[in-house]
């Protein structure tokens, strides 16, 4: 096969550049453990109201024994329930979200919080909010004619003003 010397150099350059990109991705994935939300956990979306975790009175913000925070949400047309939550800054927060109806997606602009919410599967994502403030939590996948209206509010407060709470009670809602 005939390859011009200049083109040969270009090919090496291209391979080197791709190699650098891949090295960066593998480094963050394997050494820093940064992964997109992958979590294969089936759930029956038709009977969330009967589930131990996603029944209506179980939704909201919970403090775990180890001090981290867990948020249990249901995505349903058209909102993320509970519609308003409060969270502390600078603390790892794990969201667990299930859809009660169709496909949704969620992200909180300017943060790392985002995942698809697929009916039949629990979505789980852990993140830390660096800064206090009022954040909208938006649905980002078309879910019906009311998709534009599907959003909820997240208020992130400074760590110092975050109340200590017992693990038995949902807090921050």
């Amino acid at each position, binding site marked *: 096969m005939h390859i011009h010397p200049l083109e040969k150099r270009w090919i090496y350059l291209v*391979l080197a550049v791709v190699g650098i990109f*891949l090295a960066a991705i593998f480094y963050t*994935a394997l050494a820093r453990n940064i992964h997109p939300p992958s979590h294969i956990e*089936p759930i029956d979306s038709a009977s969330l109201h009967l589930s131990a975790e996603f029944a209506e009175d179980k939704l909201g913000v919970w403090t775990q024994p180890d001090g981290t925070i867990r948020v249990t949400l249901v995505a349903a047309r058209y909102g993320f329930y509970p519609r308003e939550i409060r969270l502390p800054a600078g603390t790892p927060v794990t969201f667990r979200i299930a859809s009660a109806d169709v496909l949704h997606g969620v992200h909180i602009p*300017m943060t790392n919080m985002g995942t698809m919410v697929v009916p039949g599967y629990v979505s789980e994502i852990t993140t830390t909010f660096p800064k206090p403030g009022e954040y909208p939590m938006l649905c*980002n996948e078309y879910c019906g004619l009311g998709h534009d209206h599907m959003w909820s509010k997240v208020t992130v407060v400074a760590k110092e003003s975050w109340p200590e709470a017992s693990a038995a009670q949902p807090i921050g809602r």
Partner: protein
Amino acid sequence: MLTIEIRKLALSHFAVAFGAFGLAALMGFYQVLARSDLIPALQSPGVYFASVSTHGVLMAYVLTTFFIMGFGYVTAVSSLKTPLWNPRWAWIGFWTSAVGTGLAALPLLLGRASVLYTFYPPVQAHALFYIGAALLVVGSWFWAVIMIVMHGQWKKAHPGEPVPLPMFATTANAILWLWTSAGVASEVVFQLIPWSMGLKDTVDPGLARTLFAWTLHPIVYFWLIPAYIALYSFVPKAAGGKLFSDELGRVAFVMLLVLSLPIGFHHLYMDPQQGAGFKLSHGTLTFLVAVPTLLTAFTITASVELAGRINGGTGLFGWIGALPWRNSMVLAGILAAAMLVLGGFGGLVNASYAMNAMVHNTAWVAGHFHLIFGGTTVILYMATTYYLWPRLTGKPLCSSTLPLIQLWSWFWGFVILTTAWHILGLLGQPRRISTVTYHSPLTFAWDPYILTMVVGGTVLMVSAGLFVYILAKSYRQPETGPIQADEIEYAEPLEPVTRVHPLLNGFSVWNIALAVLMLANFGYPIAQFFLIKTFGSVAWGY
């Protein structure tokens, strides 16, 4: 010279393609206007989502499939210099796809299929929509088979000779399309049609998304390969030069075929139903598929540079000015390359395993694919059509300046539209909304960009109208006698190729490689839905 039969076949395909395109462009304009809230009377989610669903289907499935089929027939007969194999099949394919398009259009326009062009269940459309979409695909399979058979027959009749590059690429695309469409076809046939007709109560949205992701990435290469054929085969010649390397062109098309298929999970990075390992594997291959595009960038730039120097250009950049910018093919090639560079950077962000989270399902994504698909790909469809039109209709174009104005405005329209769209995405605006209703201060930052999009959309609508106008006007001219050149001419390689390695002349080994890669990357991810207990979803309206 093309026979009357081929001309009629190609023109029929192009008529459907560009009719759909004109209608969809009007809808695109309505959409940017509706989202801006400039005219409150336009606010209606029902109309808006019927419109985006139709716009998406017409642009992504109808314009592309019909253009690719029509262009493929022309490429096959003109580059191989043989008659079309089985014209009857070609017409059956055309009518199957056309009827499918019509069947799908009914519920779309009536608002009974407002499920967007990705039709993710469990939101359910009218059964006719899925049946129509399936027929559109089935019709295109006739085309794919004809391309593969013609490639094989020519090789048999010319042992040891290299298949002409444009036909090699077209065959690669036909094979790519058969592999690609298998994913969505299984979703539609085994899941959606039975479910929408009431034969099945539930579908598994996780499996449906996995099958759709099988198709969703390589389909963009199905759309792109004809544009690359124009870059390899028409642009160097139009610029007054030769193709720098025929063999590396073949390498690029083979890599596009093999590497674009096992990577669809970059559309599922944010999904819960697939594991991190498979996502990382697809993500790695996604970066490798940048290689053939970068090879193409080199080959085409080198070809065009040689042409510029032949035309008297000197110095490091002087050759650029010496190119025939007033040739519509050359102009489109340059503008397409500019948009490809911009869009390529965005693509690296989307493809990144971790960074994707920042832009996933935001307005950034719609900005990205309008730039690279609506921009890069379609501008080359347009230039190719300007080149073919006189050879198909037997009449010259009605003007030599109007096409240039049209191509420039298509470029600037997309630069304006998609720059604003990308910024909106970084500012957190979700895609697929019909208007902004969130009561959050964040949305104030969006306003200027939403207005900028209206400007871009206006330019584009005018440009799209001009394109359709030029074709219609030229077609309706009175007969003007034969035009000067009616052969279709492909760029010659700088180094004549008399023989190439069999691996670069056929696809059997590549099909096996592809089967192995697909099994490794999709085997378990699909099988898992049958191995673990999952729960289906009932149908939901919208």
